[in-house]
């Protein structure tokens, strides 16, 4: 017990500026300190003293102020993995979590190292990050932006996480990204496909490895024109929310540029489960292609309904009727069962990529091998992007030599890398979006096993899906500058 320390010593210590490192009698750490005027700062401090002096017996911890939020202390660093564990995307979240756990294992030098062996940057050496062992905390986003922020804040405030990753919807990604910007934490987005995440809602502290609606449209359009002809009439069913809007816009504008006509675009409620009322009038409209801008349960149900209504057997305008699903996912393909066969869509990555298209996509097999060995089934693209994001973060920290978000941002912005399964990739500095090849896939007609659901139609090279940072579909936002927090 250290009652003998006089209060005025403590007071003197406290009156030093907040940013100063010290080894005083006790330390009051101030986080997220406001940048308002200095007198008010003093006020808060006086309040703190009042409460502190009642509880004098304190002991010192010399970390103090490192200039950014949640600077890792001791020999560990904590990452926060915020994934949907309840709600309709829980399975996707579970797969993301598996990937995160695998990535942490590899970073800490356990397991076979996965993509760390193939990664073009060799900074990571399996001793954690900057020599600190990687720990992680998990949370449940519930695929609701409120819950996701609550969970992320708990990781930041309670567990001292220095990076947040995960999520499986754009609503959550945008909400958590904004939070990380305010708090001074790096956000490595998980599965988020809306243009807005790196468009009008982009933030300096946020990074997206996953592709986006624009890229889907740009990748799909030429292949659709190739496969189905350039004079098609498309009918869009669009989920009535942001992601649906950006996807519809992207697919429309790229297909229309190649000569397609858009007959109609109907918005469907997110809460809809039966899409028959939207599907049934499609044939009457004279359209010969149905584009389902749906994701998750919406997509499974609308596709199932469309097949039930026999759309695929129809011949309209002398052409075979086709269905397109711009954003594909393995879990949804599984949910849709046989209905997915022959349906074209786009993907960020697929576990069979390297086997089918060769060494350009190196890293894929290494990842599939270590994921498959550990869990017994191949990883989904959500798992892949989460794994890659974790490695990229760790690598950026290592190269920067600091956990400071601003150093990380600097290391990641404009970073070019390879060997993470997508071929040569660029993390563009202008909007923190990754640019890489986009896969156009098709539901496999005769799967060899239960995981063999898609075949790769073609890979659209990165150049074709790259757009200017000020492209109209991405306008309205500004990256701002990095925020290190405290």
């Amino acid at each position, binding site marked *: 017990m250290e009652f003998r320390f006089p209060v005025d010593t403590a007071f003197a210590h406290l009156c030093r500026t907040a940013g100063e490192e010290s080894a005083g009698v006790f330390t009051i750490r101030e986080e997220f300190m406001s940048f308002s005027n200095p007198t008010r700062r003093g006020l808060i401090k006086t309040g703190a003293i009042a409460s502190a002096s009642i*509880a004098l017996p304190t002991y010192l911890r010399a970390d103090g102020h490192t200039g950014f939020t949640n600077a890792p202390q001791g020999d560990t660093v904590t990452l926060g993995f915020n994934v949907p564990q309840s709600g309709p995307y829980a399975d996707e979240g579970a797969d993301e979590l598996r990937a995160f756990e695998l990535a942490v294992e590899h970073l800490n030098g356990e397991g076979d190292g996965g993509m760390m062996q193939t990664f073009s940057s060799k900074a990571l050496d399996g001793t954690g990050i900057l020599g600190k062992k990687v720990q992680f905390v998990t949370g449940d986003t519930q695929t609701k932006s409120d819950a996701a922020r609550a969970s992320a804040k708990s990781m930041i405030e309670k567990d001292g996480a220095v990076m947040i990753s995960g999520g499986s919807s754009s609503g959550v990604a945008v909400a958590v990204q904004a939070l990380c910007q305010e708090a001074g934490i790096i956000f490595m987005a998980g599965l988020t496909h*809306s243009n807005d995440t790196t468009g009008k809602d982009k933030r300096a502290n946020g990074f997206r490895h996953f592709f986006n609606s624009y890229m889907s449209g740009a990748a799909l359009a030429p292949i659709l024109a190739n496969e189905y002809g350039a004079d098609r009439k498309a009918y869009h069913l669009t989920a009535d929310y942001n992601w649906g809007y950006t996807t519809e816009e992207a697919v429309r504008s790229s297909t229309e540029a190649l000569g397609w006509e858009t007959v109609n675009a109907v918005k469907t409620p997110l809460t809809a489960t039966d899409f028959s009322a939207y599907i049934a009038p499609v044939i009457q409209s004279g359209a010969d292609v149905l584009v389902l801008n749906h994701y998750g349960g919406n997509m499974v149900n609308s596709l199932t309904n469309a097949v039930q209504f026999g759309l695929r057997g129809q011949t309209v305008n002398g052409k075979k009727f086709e269905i397109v699903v711009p954003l594909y996912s393995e879990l949804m393909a599984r949910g849709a069962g046989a209905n997915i066969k022959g349906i074209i869509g786009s993907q960020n990555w697929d576990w069979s990529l390297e086997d089918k298209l060769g060494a350009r996509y190196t890293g894929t097999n290494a990842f599939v091998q270590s994921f498959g060995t550990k869990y017994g089934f191949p990883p989904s693209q959500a798992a892949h992007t989460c794994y890659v994001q974790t490695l990229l973060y760790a690598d950026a920290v290592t190269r920067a030599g600091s956990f400071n978000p601003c150093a990380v941002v600097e290391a990641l912005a404009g970073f070019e890398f390879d060997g993470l399964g997508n071929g040569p990739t660029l993390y563009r500095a202008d909007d923190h979006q990754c640019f890489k090849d986009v896969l156009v896939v098709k539901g496999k007609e005769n799967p060899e096993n239960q995981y063999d659901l898609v075949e790769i139609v073609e890979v659209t090279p990165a150049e074709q899906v790259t757009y200017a940072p000020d492209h109209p579909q991405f306008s309205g936002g500004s990256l701002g500058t990095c925020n290190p927090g405290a």
Partner: protein
Amino acid sequence: MFGLNKKDGGLLLIVAFLALAAPFILNPFPEGSAMAQFNAGYPDLMQRLVIFGIFAIGFNILFGLTGYLSFGHAAFLGVGSYAAIWMMKLLTMNVIPAIVVSIAIAGLFSLLVGWISLRRSGIYFSILTLAFAQMSYALAYSVLTPITGGETGLQPKYNDPRILDAALEPGQSPRANLFGLDMKASSELEIGNWIFTFNTGYYIAAIVMLLSFYLSIRIFRSPFGMMLRAVKSNQQRMNYTGLNTRPYTLAAFVISGMYAGLAGGLLVAMDTQVGAERMFWTASGEVVLMTILGGAGTLIGPVLGAGFIKYMENIVSKINKSVLEQWFAFMPDGIEDIMITLIYPFVGKGWHLTLGLLFMLVVIFLPGGLVEGGQRIGKAFSRKKASDDTTDATKTPAE
């Protein structure tokens, strides 16, 4: 004290103590210990506990007193939140205008909804309010995206107009503040292995909660509060005693709507973000659960219920397999595995299961909610002391 009788004054003092000392009370376990997982004394959760407490206190004024079960109160919370964020985008990051406007807008909206819904009673009333809330949610998520931000919600941005505020320095994010006092400013106090966090935003929210709680005690003890309980008890007698029940119920509805708006505004003040899911029917259901779980019609019950559910949501959902492994590491391997297998389904991603089971257990065994549980414990203690003068305290209907 403050025009309260001794018992209510005591209750207010207890709540005030709990709220002000929350950073200590909610952080009973030292950092780094296995039990630290259960610590809830970090700013965000503490803020949520008091804000949802306010929401539930307000809901209780309607449901606990008049017995009208609204299934759409989240709509008022959501509308309040949207009003607040727009004030922050357009006017100033100072939380005062945001909160004031959120209360006002939520009040107006609840006046409209209440005026229509209160034409019916019983489950018909519940379904009417549910219908309004679901419509608000559906529209906010989709068609009203230009106003609400839809799926991605609204956050203050660097380039918002904010006509009252000075321009931000480059690189600065707009921060919610009270005349310059940053909502996110925190001080930490370390005692031994314990770290206690004192957060400006939390204390502001806690003070607002105490004021709300005080106001609710006054309403409970007022002639108006008695009239509301009379509405619940016998509307026929109300009418034949010359009292017009409609304005009473409407006033209660609007007051509880304004409480919801206040909660919504505070949520934005603490965490500058609004998403439409805030208005989904499950969010309305949640406040019903909070109120009943704590004890509908009691003063303190709704606050307890809100704390209970938010604690579950934020703490239990974060316990994952590796945390369990850490806890049971001291056990022999076989037993450790069994323990983990037994507990794992109920924590982490299984936290909903625990929540569902707890609802059932509480309703089955404690029909009066947590407050009744507390009273039973209290009774058990007083029985030991062989004193029977507590029956009056537990039976007072207004409580």
